């Protein structure tokens, strides 16, 4: 992936994390695994970068966390989307879609507007 401005990258990562969690509570490794699967390995983000993002979202109150037993019966920290997280996800998706559409519009232009 080409180098992107940090805040864009960060915002994108936050969006992906929130989207992943909207499918159900998950621990850090699970989130990173799922993003890899869903994006068909397109995002080669260092897996460690996930944790600052998760803590950032937790600080903003968009996700909550608790320790509980994982699928292989080990203690893992599970993150859950909160109500405000779900709301934020909606807003972010809207913004992202509109942004993507505008970019697509520019890219598909064939001549200058009159």
């Amino acid at each position, binding site marked *: 992936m080409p180098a992107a401005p940090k805040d864009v990258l960060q915002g994108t990562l936050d969006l992906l994390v929130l989207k992943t969690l909207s499918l159900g509570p998950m621990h850090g490794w699970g989130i990173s695994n799922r993003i890899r699967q869903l994006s068909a390995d397109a995002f080669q983000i260092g897996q460690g970068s996930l944790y600052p993002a998760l803590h950032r979202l937790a600080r903003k109150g968009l996700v909550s966390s608790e320790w509980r037993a994982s699928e292989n019966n*080990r203690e893992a920290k599970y993150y859950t989307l909160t109500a405000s997280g779900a709301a934020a996800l909606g807003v972010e998706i809207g913004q992202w879609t509109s942004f993507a559409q505008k970019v697509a519009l520019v890219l598909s232009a064939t001549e200058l507007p009159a």
Partner: protein
Amino acid sequence: MSFIDSLRTSWRELSNRNAVDDDLEREMRFHLEMESAANRAKGLDAGAARRKALIDFGGVQRHKEEVRDGRALRWFEDLLVDLRYAMRRLAHAPAFALSAVVILSLGIGSASAVAAIVDQLLRRSMPYPEADRIIFATEATDKGEAMLTSWPNFVDWRQRSQSLTQLSAFTTQANEAMVVAGEAIRGTTQQVSADFFSVFGVVPIAGRLILADENRRGGAPVALVSERLWRSQMSAAPLTPQSSVLRQGRRYQIVGVLPGSFSVITHADLWIPARQTPVEVRGAGNYSVVGRLHDNVVIDAGRAELNTIARALKSEYGDASVSKAVVLTSLQDQVVSSARRPLEILLGASRFLLIVAAASIAMLQLARGHSRDRELGVRVSLGAGRVRILRQLLTEQLVLALSGAAGGIAVAAAAILAVRRFGAGLLPRIDELHFDQRVIVGAVVAAIGSVVLFGILPTLRLARTPGKLTAATVRGDNSARSFSLFVGLQSGVAVLLLCGAALLVSSLYRVLTTDLGYNRAGVVAVTVPLTGERYNDMARRISTAEEIRSSLAQLPGAGDVALTSQVPQQRGGNRGPILIAPFGNPDVQSSWASIASIRVVSEKYFDLMGIQRLQGELLRDADGPESRKVVINRALAKKLWPNADPIGRQLRALADPKADTLTVVGVVADAHDWRSAEGAQQEMYLLVQQRPQMAWQMNAVFRPTANVDATMSEARRRIRQIDAEMSPIIRTLDQAMDETIADRQFIGGIVVIFAAVVLLLTIAGVFGMVAYVVQRRTREIAIRIAIGASRREVWFMVQRGVIAAALVGCVAGVIGSLQFSKLLAALLYDVSPNSPAVLGAATVGVMAVIGIAASVPALRAVRIPPLLAMRGE
């Protein structure tokens, strides 16, 4: 998330820092294990699976730091770490830390104490309602010099003025003997006319004010006392009809107590009514006037109106009225103007001291720089960020600054207490000084300011250099330059303050040693009041004075005893214009008339005081009460008859209660009042018998040959025998002189202390700089010596920088002191503020001291063995 939640999270993170870190650790470990397991499932062996997991994760520590960076109070955590580290570092260098804190405390303490004193004395408005509308007025000479106001003129001002209200007159007698509750004390009395207290809206804390009737002639003798006197002498007991004070032989019933905050111009202990009396003549000023501006009247309008009234009075009363001008200022300005000069000097001196203290701290830090560079170099190579290092260094500065501020606050509190205690009476309202939060704020601001100015400079350098340790460390160029700057600064301020101290001290020395025109050595003055009902009979007054004189003359070893209404240096007494013959000729009067004060003396006075007869003859007791002879001093003779022989000339004094035409029979030398800026006061002398009206205060002076202390106490006993209620003030003229120079001594003493501290710091600075140069260049010096450099060359090499810096500083200091001494000029006696001798001596002195301080470490440099060049570190 609400603000409260965010605070709570921050707090939890901060208080459970370890728990949170632990949580993160476990979370990441779980991730890596899961990833390794997944990798193994793809067929990698255990080691490879773990390695791949770690690589994919991308730096566990880095991500942990990122998480921590996200915390809101990260800066605070760092601050705690830095603080701990700074404390530890300072504890490792206790000598440095202690000297830095002590120097800073002294600098900050003195600066903030002086600033608080100046602020409280000069800027704080007076605690009266609409204090800015209170005015202070007196008659003035044509040249605008303030004089005292006569009672008749004051009464006319009050009747005619439209723009001023509540005009009231008062006069102050300092250092009066009085008896309260059976104990003789000395205090200051203000005699005040009606309305005086309403000008200030003051409310007594006990009893009542003086009533209008009591301010009329024949009113009951009543008095108000100060809260201080009430508490110290009367144990703050309730007032009864028996509460009374005895003053000038008269008993006053104490009817009220005024709050401690009340003081007009000077702090008084006793207030009594001023009344119209027959001695109040239009020509003799005795009073100052206060009042209030009417609403909507500006002070200029009030001043203009009073001047118009004064001109009208002058044309109505002609020669009988003294002046045709008035000076009128706000009372606040009047109070402040007398104190401004000395306080500005102290303020300036204390700021210079603070600057030098801060420069010394900076130099201490520079000197520590060597070890610092290495430590920082290690930390940078271990991966510490530049900003992080800068912050840590600044934290260390902050710890120093705050310790200095704390020490400074303690020093300031002690200094304010000391000034209150020892400075009482030297400056107006000094007993109202107190320690307040502004001192604290001032100290903290001064501490941070000085550390920012002088701590950040070296810090920035340190933070910049660690990358390229070698060049800067070995040559030490930067530090040497900063050192030069600070040495220059220190020596400049040292010259400046030393000049100031030298001027003040030599002025005091001149006052004490110069020939003031009389000989005070060994003279004892017994001062007694001769007023009150008992002495209103002039014959009685004269006989009592004579009785005192002869009684004291019988003391063993007393010798001759002379009488005088005022000894030299003592102020007071009638002062007014002199008219000279031919009288009634306005041309002669307006061009020649001059103001003189009248003293009454006995025959032996001039002889006993060593006041020389210059011309003609002196007064003789045998001349008797009807004598028309007068003796004038040289200053008055020169003023009245600059080109003619004064003997046999006639004059009249408006302040003379008898208003006789007098004939000049003799001229005596001036007895200088050294405080007078205009030179010798103009004086005329009459016999006590001629004017007993003016002998309401009498001094018996004599020069005991035997045991002075015993003679003084015996003198007191004899006075009591003559009048049991009389409480004399007995002291030598040397003691009286000490009192007149006390304020100069106070200012001079403080400037001397400041100068001494600055000089010490300069010595330390110069020593430190040369020692630093020698330490840095030890090997170089060894090599130079090894290849044949002479000791002299080495000697000059290590001192060159410091001496050059000090020379530049001294030149700047001399230029600065030319400015500083302008402030001092008003306090100096017989010393030019720009005296080349003083400037030269101070500069040479500072340079000599610097030379000595520099040569001690330089000597060490000269003795560096050349072998050292061959040894490694």
